[in-house]
């Protein structure tokens, strides 16, 4: 049952929110022991929230567009009085005194939070294996990863443990797990959704977005969580999206570009497997058959994205994660002096990948290295913005595979960070440019696991992206 179907049933009184929530909680009970998608299940809170929705319906008041819809929240979004861990030991025992803006907006729309989902610690990873609470498994094959870093949120929706979920996408952390788990994952334009209450990884790259089983659900959730927030200075002061209205417009006349450097062809980055290349090509052909024009477009700097990203994101993270020092919240390992306490706390609290990125970022910003590393990465960002702007003069949207491969086996890439990092090669450019991108399932690979196809557009092109995504969804095999 889609989120919109649930909301319609609850709003009309056909079905109680309590009943819906019980059904989902029962499924979590049955399935999550194996999947480990949730860090925390909010059974009691969810039942109370569902009862409130039902009371609103009974009173004849508007319970909101997502009335009774069970939602899972990535555990890097602050929830008032409820543990928020980032899947890290360092936040042990911390309960935020406030809700993230997205959490407030979902609640106001009648959605019911059923739990906090697992992630790679501080959203640093592409497989949800870097979690202090153990890996999440892919519901379609439990010996494979669900992708990451929002693997718990993707797995929860794919397994029907939540109707929708929220993830955060810093370099592909919504789109890649959506592709791996066979669901729809959307990273909106930077600033389209408030980051207030999202525990920062790379502040200039982070963006919250929805997972769902359908494009229409995705549009409905983005309408709710999007829009200006005075608490986030980088939030765009633009009218909220009207997305559901464009879903049946088709792609007649739309110009779709195949991004040559991320296609697997001769000028492309390496590592995109042939079955994934084939699915992406088939998706382009299907859009063409539906009335879009398709052409190849070149964005040479797209190949530099990965290198630039692994300077910008760790640099910002090294600063963002400084506050986890044992002084005010979370874990504290006592030691004779304040300085030693901070060191002991951070040594014990952070996992290996987080420490690696803090060190990378610290180095990239250091005096004498800034220009060669961080400064150069900023130049790549500027170059990419210019080249993508040129590309979007030729086409309305770009199409690429979401990830170079399908979901890989658990443990396969944990030993070598570089093999993990290349997972995000197709998704990273739109984080560096701040542009929106969606991953829509499009068939399966040779291993039978889902393949995701990504549609990218310029800033605030969400309506066009959803318009085309709805067609892709319809024609997908």
């Amino acid at each position, binding site marked *: 049952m889609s989120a919109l179907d649930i909301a319609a049933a609850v709003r009309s009184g056909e079905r109680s929110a309590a009943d819906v929530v019980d059904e989902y909680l029962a499924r979590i009970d049955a399935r999550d022991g194996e999947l480990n998608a949730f860090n925390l299940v909010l059974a009691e809170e969810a039942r109370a929230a569902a009862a409130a929705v039902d009371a609103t319906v009974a009173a004849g008041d508007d319970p909101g567009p997502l009335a009774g819809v069970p939602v899972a929240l990535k555990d890097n979004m*602050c929830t008032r009085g409820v543990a928020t861990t980032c899947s890290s030991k360092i936040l042990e025992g911390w309960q935020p005194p406030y809700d993230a803006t997205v959490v407030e907006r979902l609640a106001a729309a009648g959605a019911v939070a059923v739990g906090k989902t697992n992630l790679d610690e501080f959203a640093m990873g592409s497989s949800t294996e870097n979690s202090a609470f153990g890996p999440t498994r892919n519901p379609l094959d439990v010996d494979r990863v669900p992708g990451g870093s929002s693997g718990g949120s993707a797995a929860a929706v794919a397994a029907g443990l939540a109707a929708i979920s929220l993830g955060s996408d810093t370099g592909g952390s919504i789109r890649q797990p959506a592709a791996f788990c066979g669901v729809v994952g959307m990273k909106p334009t930077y600033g389209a959704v408030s980051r207030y209450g999202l525990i*920062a990884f790379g502040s200039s790259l982070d963006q919250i977005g929805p997972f769902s089983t359908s494009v229409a659900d995705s549009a409905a959730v983005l309408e709710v969580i999007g829009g200006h927030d005075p608490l986030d200075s980088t939030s765009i002061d633009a009218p909220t999206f009207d997305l559901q209205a464009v879903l049946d417009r088709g792609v007649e006349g739309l110009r779709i570009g195949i991004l040559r450097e991320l296609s697997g062809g001769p000028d492309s980055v390496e590592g995109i497997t042939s079955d994934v290349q084939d699915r992406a090509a088939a998706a382009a052909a299907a859009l063409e058959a539906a009335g879009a024009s398709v052409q190849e477009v070149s964005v040479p700097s797209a190949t530099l994205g990965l290198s630039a990203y692994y300077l910008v994101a760790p640099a910002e993270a090294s600063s963002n994660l400084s506050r986890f020092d044992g002084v005010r919240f979370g874990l504290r390992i006592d030691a004779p002096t304040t300085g030693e306490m901070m060191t002991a706390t951070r040594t014990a609290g952070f996992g290996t990948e987080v420490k690696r990125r803090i060190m990378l970022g610290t180095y990239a910003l250091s005096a004498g290295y800034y220009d060669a590393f961080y400064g150069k990465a900023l130049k790549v960002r500027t170059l990419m913005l210019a080249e993508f702007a040129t590309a979007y003069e030729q086409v309305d949207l770009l199409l690429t595979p979401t990830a170079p491969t399908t979901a890989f086996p658990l443990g396969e890439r944990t030993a070598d960070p570089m093999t993990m990092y290349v997972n995000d090669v197709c998704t990273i450019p739109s984080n560096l440019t701040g542009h929106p991108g969606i991953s829509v399932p499009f068939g399966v690979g040779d291993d039978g696991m889902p393949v995701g196809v990504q549609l990218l557009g310029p800033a605030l092109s969400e309506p066009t992206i959803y318009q085309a995504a709805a067609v892709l969804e319809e024609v997908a095999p």
Partner: protein
Amino acid sequence: MTGLHEPTLPAEWELVVGLEVHVELATQTKLFCGCANEFSTEPNTNVCPTCLGLPGSLPVMNETVVDFAMRLGRALGCSIHPSVMARKNYFYPDMAKDFQTTQYDQPTNRDGELALADGTVVGIERAHIEEDAGKTTHVGGGGRINDATYSLVDYNRAGVPLVEIVSHPDIRTVEHAKAYVSELRDILLAIAVSDAKMEEGSMRVDANVSVRPVGSSELRTRCELKNINSIRSLGRAIEYEACRHVDLYESDEAPRQETRHWDEDGGRSTAGRSKEDADDYRYFQEPDLVPLTPTPEQVAAIDGAMPVLPAARRARLGELSAVADDVVATVVERCQDALALGAIEAGADADKVLTRIQNDLAVDDWSAVTGQTLATLVQMESGGELSATQAKQVLADMAAGNHGGDPKSIAEARGFEAMESDALETLIDQLINDNPDEWFRFTSDDEGDRKKMQGFFTGQIMKATKGQADGRAVAELLSRKSAG
């Protein structure tokens, strides 16, 4: 008088000083959140997720801070620039996010100057916006972070808006350093962006001190002096530090670049961190804030609303009166020049107004005194209705708001009536009779003697009348009688 030996810089050495002044802006709320900008209250009460640096919190720029900062910049003749905030990364328990949000390579205000009363001009490099840290109290050990048993942190001050004003190393004398700070404070008060109290820490002065042989233009190794809590202390600290450098150079040593802690009680500076083990702050642009892009209209509005600054106000009073410069300076510093101008406009004598204010209105609250009532008071005194002593008492009552601040009602209530001139003349005749030698000297041609004896007779009369006599009437009578 200090009792301590105050070292003096030898004549062949020249002082080179640059000042970094941190000023707390008197906004209602903090720099990046809605918390009250008030930190004398119960610890950790004016705090929120943002100023506590809690995970997930974000800063939002307080527009009033930007306005205040630009106002200060323009008052110092700076040019206003588009700017970005930056992060200065370092670990310290009272720095909630373990980075300070500040302006680094793109400050709002650049290239200004501050003119001192004697015409000396000190260049201003920049005046940038940044946030304050919380306040740490180290308990046990030596009271420093390294050996404390435990530390207490109050985050009420965390996120309080500051402007740091950085001067060029243009200052050559201790007096100029003190005058710079004093003038800056006057400007801050005049443009109403800070209460600028050094003793309370809302204005904090660090001094970069070095010396060089007179005639040289080199810049030698400097030391940064911190913990200077008053203008007087600033003078002592600079003097001490400069002499320390000279001593080192003269014994073939050299100071090393470091931060030093001024010990006011001990009258000396002690070594802090040296530059070699200083942090690498890893500055980069703050991604959570958008660039500040002041428009020409905003700058024009600030210029248009700029009040008359202390230098111009001093000049105005100076033109109207013949009193000494320091009288005018005091009146302007206390922001009592508008009151003085009001009284002068209402017809009172300018010199008398300024002298009366300077001598007798050094109180915190004088809001009950108006130009009109002050003029009345000064005129009553001039007209002989009040003696100087009585006028002083009436003014105190006026400032306290007694009898509606009306000088006539106050004088009446106090029973002040000028002595009848007949009674006064009788008294003077009596005194002349009793003190013939003194009277002879008063009538002599010796100007010094005459002055001295005028003081003698006036004093005797005041003593006899318990201050009730009017000084001017006494002077006139004495003069008339001596003329014959």
